């Protein structure tokens, strides 16, 4: 079949499976990130990937994936802690720490004019994914789904009112930290394929679009995952035929969905 001719290549098949794993994951996580107004937080996390790689390079760690993940987890917990302690507004605090860590990462990685070696992480390349890396992604998907089954209610309860959650013996700090760690893991594991510059768009756009037209949590999740999957698959196919980078194509489709749902939502809510 002509329509599926792109599936004859191994790299396209792997990329297709990767999309089938990553996009529902992002659709799922995005619902909570948008609800909790953490868009800026996840953005800062994405940027911290550079610092994580730099730390790995400085300490001579061979697999910079590990230093990247470890750094992101510590960074996310630190951000959580600081935002809850400091009275200044959260986005200011996050911005300060994010710029500081990113500058450090860029400075270290650009030493000796070597930055071009790392620039691929800015845009990402889903076509270079291997089978083993696909398995890691699958593991994270299962982990996230498990956390969602056991923790989503509590997370929602905490985000609505912390004191009220406390009266049901739900620990806000625990849930917030677990969620931050999970976000860090997901962003770091997928950043090589999606790219620092657009990873946040993929996290935010499907959930934000879904929010435009949903009235309850079930619709919110359903549409977010469907939009995410749809933009992912369509983006991959289009990028193959038009020969442009996959990540940006996906984001453009997700943006178009956002505008359509925005207009549709306004029409029906007013």
């Amino acid at each position, binding site marked *: 079949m002509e329509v599926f001719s792109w599936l004859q290549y191994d790299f396209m098949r792997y990329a297709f499976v990767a999309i089938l794993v990553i996009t529902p994951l992002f659709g799922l996580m995005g619902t909570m990130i948008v609800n909790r107004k953490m868009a800026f937080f996840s953005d800062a996390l994405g940027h911290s990937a550079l610092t994580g790689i730099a730390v790995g390079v400085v300490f001579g760690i061979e697999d910079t994936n590990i230093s990247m993940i470890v750094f992101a987890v510590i960074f996310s917990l630190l951000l959580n802690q600081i935002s809850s302690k400091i009275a200044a507004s959260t986005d200011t605090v996050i911005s300060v720490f994010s710029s500081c860590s990113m500058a450090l990462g860029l400075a270290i990685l650009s030493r000796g004019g070597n930055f071009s070696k790392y620039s691929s992480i800015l845009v990402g390349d889903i076509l270079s994914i291997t089978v083993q890396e696909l398995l890691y992604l699958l593991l994270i998907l299962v982990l996230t789904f498990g956390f969602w089954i056991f923790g*989503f*209610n509590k997370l*929602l309860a905490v*985000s609505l009112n*912390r*004191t009220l959650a*406390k*009266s049901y013996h739900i620990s806000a700090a625990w849930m917030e930290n677990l969620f931050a760690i999970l976000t860090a893991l997901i962003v770091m594991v997928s950043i090589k394929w999606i790219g620092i510059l657009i990873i946040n768009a993929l996290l935010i756009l499907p959930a934000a679009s879904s929010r435009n037209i949903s009235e309850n949590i079930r619709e919110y999740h359903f549409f977010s995952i469907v939009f995410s999957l749809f933009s992912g698959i369509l983006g991959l196919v289009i990028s193959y035929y038009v020969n442009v980078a996959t990540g940006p194509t996906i984001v453009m489709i997700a943006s178009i969905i956002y505008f359509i749902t925005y207009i549709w939502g306004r029409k029906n809510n007013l």
Partner: protein
Amino acid sequence: MKKIIKPCGLHCIKVNHLGVSLGNQEILKDINLHMHCGSLNAVIGPNGAGKSTLIRAILGDIPHTGNIEFKDRENGQIQKLKIGYVPQSLNIEKQTPVSVYDMIASYQSHFPVFLVKNRKVKNKILDYLKVFEADYLLDKQVCNLSGGELQRVLLSMAIMDSPNLLLLDEPVSGIDRNGMELFYKTIYQLKEHYDLAIILISHDLDYVKRYADKVILLEKTVLKQGSVKEVYQSKEFLKVFQLEKEET
């Protein structure tokens, strides 16, 4: 209002020497309270007196010194205290896709709300919403409720686990005069028909005068407590609220 459980008047809740400090600042000190089931206890005091802190301390949301006892007056047995809480407001914006069912189920049930509606959970929620004539709100978005509707929903949720103590933070915004009247009437009926003690943080001295059984005047510590008459005629009351009136 259905489900009538007469208060037995035999349970009592005691707060002993409760104190809260944040850093070097002492916010509450040596609070002693004694409440019986079936009583409406109103906490009044100027802004920044520590009223909300008191509620958070009783809930265990912030560390405190002293202790809270729950006793059966007949045999003096100490039991586990169940607390219901009605916050002043929720952290929710316009357009948030969270329905009343989603909100209550997220606190009350372990069944993931993002999968499907669980019929058992739904029926339980409906039962309690009916107590406050709010069952028609089940599928409404929480962010679109009026102040009074939200208050009724939160009250339904607070009594779902049949608490012994109900902590209420009186709403200050989004409710008009009629709504407030209804709010106080509902609370009054609640304490008449359910076996629980109520602590209400109030900003409205007129309503307190009409509905409270006991008034607690708070400013860092309990300045005066007793019947409405005792507190309203005390020199401490005049001092606290006279000063406030001059300021405003």
